[in-house]
């Protein structure tokens, strides 16, 4: 039953994706949305042209670097903040409101600020990290609270120290929530990095998108967007797998 449901989900997903790509192709071929909508085959031919390999691989690797670095920093800071407020509940209100304020600032407004503070090349990393931070922070705090009262009672009656309760109960109990957060954070890290690159990073997919738009290089623009989506989806799929494995092991 479980397997068939999963297979069906994959089948539906593939079908939806195929349908979307077919629509893209049809709209592009018959120019249903005007001349700024190229067909899928045109975009793929353009993107896979050997002479453009260098251009795209430089941009993609720059974006990947920013995403990975921002993701790791954001996840680490989010986890550590979540852990601190679990161990020292007194700071919860102030940490919560700080995190909420950071999350409330539109990243588009934060971008120029970060460039002034950190420079052009660090802005993509910083924006990616900020996005990831908030998601992981919320997931960690919720995760630590998912240990049941009876679990806590058993640990307390067995004479566990605060530290033991933390790493033998709270951390493992939080794993499913945190991996869900990691999956949700993956596309957000992408958005953050590309947005950061828009403001004038030396290279990256975001740079490519902006310059292609300004120079009306339609196929370049679509190619860059296609690469960004593929990257984002791969990250999402990878962390989806991590989440599934973790949930299987750590949940009832």
């Amino acid at each position: 039953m479980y397997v068939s449901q999963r297979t069906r989900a994959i089948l539906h997903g593939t079908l939806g994706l195929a349908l979307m790509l077919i629509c893209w192709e049809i709209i592009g071929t018959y120019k249903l949305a005007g001349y700024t909508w190229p067909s899928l085959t045109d975009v793929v031919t353009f993107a896979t042209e050997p002479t453009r390999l260098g251009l795209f691989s430089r941009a993609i690797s720059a974006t990947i670097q920013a995403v990975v670095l921002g993701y790791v920093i954001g996840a680490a800071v989010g986890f550590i903040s979540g852990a601190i407020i679990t161990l020292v509940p007194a700071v919860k209100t102030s940490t919560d409101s700080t995190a909420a304020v950071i999350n409330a600032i539109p990243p588009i407004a934060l971008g120029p600020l970060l460039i002034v503070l950190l420079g052009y090349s660090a802005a993509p990393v910083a924006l990616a990290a900020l996005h990831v931070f908030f998601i992981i922070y919320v997931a960690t705090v919720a995760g630590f609270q998912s240990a049941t009262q009876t679990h806590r009672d058993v640990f307390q009656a067995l004479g566990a120290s605060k530290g033991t309760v933390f790493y033998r109960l709270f951390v493992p109990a939080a794993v499913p929530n945190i991996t869900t957060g990691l999956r949700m954070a993956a596309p957000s890290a992408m958005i953050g990095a590309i947005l950061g690159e828009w403001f004038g990073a030396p290279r990256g997919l975001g740079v490519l998108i902006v310059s292609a738009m300004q120079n009306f290089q339609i196929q370049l623009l679509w190619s860059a967007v296609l690469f960004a989506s593929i990257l984002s989806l791969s990250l999402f799929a990878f962390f989806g797998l991590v989440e599934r494995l973790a949930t299987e092991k750590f949940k009832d």
Partner: protein
Amino acid sequence: MYRSDTCAVPSRSKNTGLSLRGVHKTFHIKGKEVKAVDGIDLDVANGEFIALIGPSGCGKSTLLRMLAALENPTSGTVEIDGRPSAELAKAHRLGVAFQDHALLPWLSIFDNVALPFRIAGRPVDRDRINELLALVGLSEFERARPKQLSGGMRQRTSIARALALQPGVLLLDEPFGALDAVTRRHLNGELQRIWLKDSITTVLVTHSVDEALYLADRIVVMSSRPGRILQVVDVPFGRPRTREMTRSKTFHDICDELTDALRGLDQDTGNTS
């Protein structure tokens, strides 16, 4: 009217296992004071098995939680071997099992039973764990996860975990409350067998008169809120208890009397609330 008013039963041993003196517990719920436990005095001898029965909300679980150092009494003292129960908990000398088995889903059955060793920071005694798993009949399942086992097997694991460090006191809060009648009866037999091995001082909170009568040396009947001790009944059966005993007239008589007493209490609560 009550069959035995033998509140001052002489202890089987001179050492006092547990001692509750003038214990009161008041909760503050939405600005209202709720008296959960009102003036409990009780001594439990070393190696004695006590069952606490009473209607829902009579404070028997609160009493057990105070023994487990999970709640502090509002006034009065809860002592185990002459020391506050919190000290015993810190010394890893308490064993507890609840209605919710509270096994850790990410650990194997073996590692769940070994948890008290890890909490106490002691090297895991593999022989002890294997012995306990054999005792509760789960040797073949040591690599399994809790979710792969039945409800009864999980409760047995939970009891094995409670026994891991050879605790001074075993505290059981409705450990079989969520199980079907057949499994429950079976596990009552198992618990007696396990208990007879070391005769650890045990307090069992239960709704089941049958279970209390089959397992306990003494049964403490509590009144509905605020919880007070109404009656302490000496169970006249020797050990090991057999299923034949549960079919005897004496067993049924005491059973009926206790059930009537509890039913009366339940009606009282019904009228006042």
